[in-house]
């Protein structure tokens, strides 16, 4: 994930991590499915584990789930976009 950020690659990797966490093939995870809404069957612990896996995989910090008014994570595509932004921030030297 160093150098040029490939958003398609990030989306594929995020989708694969989500698929892994619900023990499904990646193709079975619709890109517009909400990650945190129960649509994919991810409970609160599953969501926490997924966030940690994403942080490990991309060497980034995801938003604080416990922050007051923390934004819900949205769709697979939106999570991937969030990851891409964090990866870009890290590569710009800012990190999080």
């Amino acid at each position, binding site marked *: 994930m160093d150098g040029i950020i490939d958003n398609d690659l990030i989306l594929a990797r995020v989708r694969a991590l989500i698929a892994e966490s619900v023990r499904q093939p990646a193709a079975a995870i619709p890109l517009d499915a909400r990650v945190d809404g129960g649509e994919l069957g991810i*409970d*609160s*612990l*599953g969501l*926490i*584990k997924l*966030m*940690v*896996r994403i*942080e*490990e995989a991309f060497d980034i*910090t995801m938003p*604080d*789930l*416990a*922050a*007051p008014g923390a934004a819900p994570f949205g769709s697979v595509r939106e999570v991937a976009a969030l990851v891409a932004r964090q990866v870009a921030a890290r590569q710009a030297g800012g990190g999080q």
Partner: protein
Amino acid sequence: MTRVAHTRAEREANLRSAADQREHERQAVAAHYEHSPEIFSLVLDSRLAYATGVYEHAGEDLETAQARKYARIAAKLDIRPGQRVLDVGCGWGSNLLYLAQHTEGVFQGITLSAQQREEALRRARAWGVADRVQIDVCHVEDLNLRPESFDAVLFSGSIVHMHNRPAVHQMVGEVLKPGGRVLISDCYFPVQPRGDRDSAATEYIFVEALGYCRLIGLAEELQLMERAGLDILHVEDLTRHYAQTLAHWIDNVRKHRRTIDAMAPGFAAVLQQYMTVARMSFARRTALEYMILATKGAPTVDPGAWPIAQKGGRS
């Protein structure tokens, strides 16, 4: 008192004999704390407090918040020269050694982890207090202490691992001298259930990550203490402080993820996951953190005289 089991782990514990549950705690609880102290030293403050700090400001660092907590516990226990102190679940000696360095008391600690004992004794020697510090690997219910032989008993982040609370409080009531103090800093469930106590997240933190935990209601704990002959002196809520402490620990896990995983593969994720569950629970107040001070007989400390910052000028 009817014993209401809040979680699956607790219901299972109720089905075991007392001896079997003790053995279960010895194995399951120790496992987490048997990880290398080197790992915890990357995550916790320099004295290795595995419990909440006390923050006066949002921007404070972990070291400052834990230093304030040590000083607060020292003030509450008010240990005089020669007084004997029992630290039940002393961990790596954070509070015990702070108290040994800042008072002239005599200290006995117990832990279920040989690693913790070794590290605490190493620190005791390095800090020149080993002659007043004894630490044993021992389950609280296996302690065989003389009645009225201690001036203070401390439980910091440890009583939550003990299923048989009536026996624990009975022991405290017996071993304290008249005027003795007991301090508990730990986690409680609100009486009116908030959140799912049988959720995968609860099971994860109480069983998978930490071996065995039994959260009860604050009033339940206080009543057990009163039944053991203790008078409650002071209770304060530190829930928000624990959420903040956990945020610092989680950031430290992130910072040292690779080093931790090199020492114990997969443990960084376990730490971050359980700490995130705990942080969310405290942030949402589905779990509460309290510090309790009680006395046997007439108190030697006076919480009524403790300062509370006044608003709107002097009265």
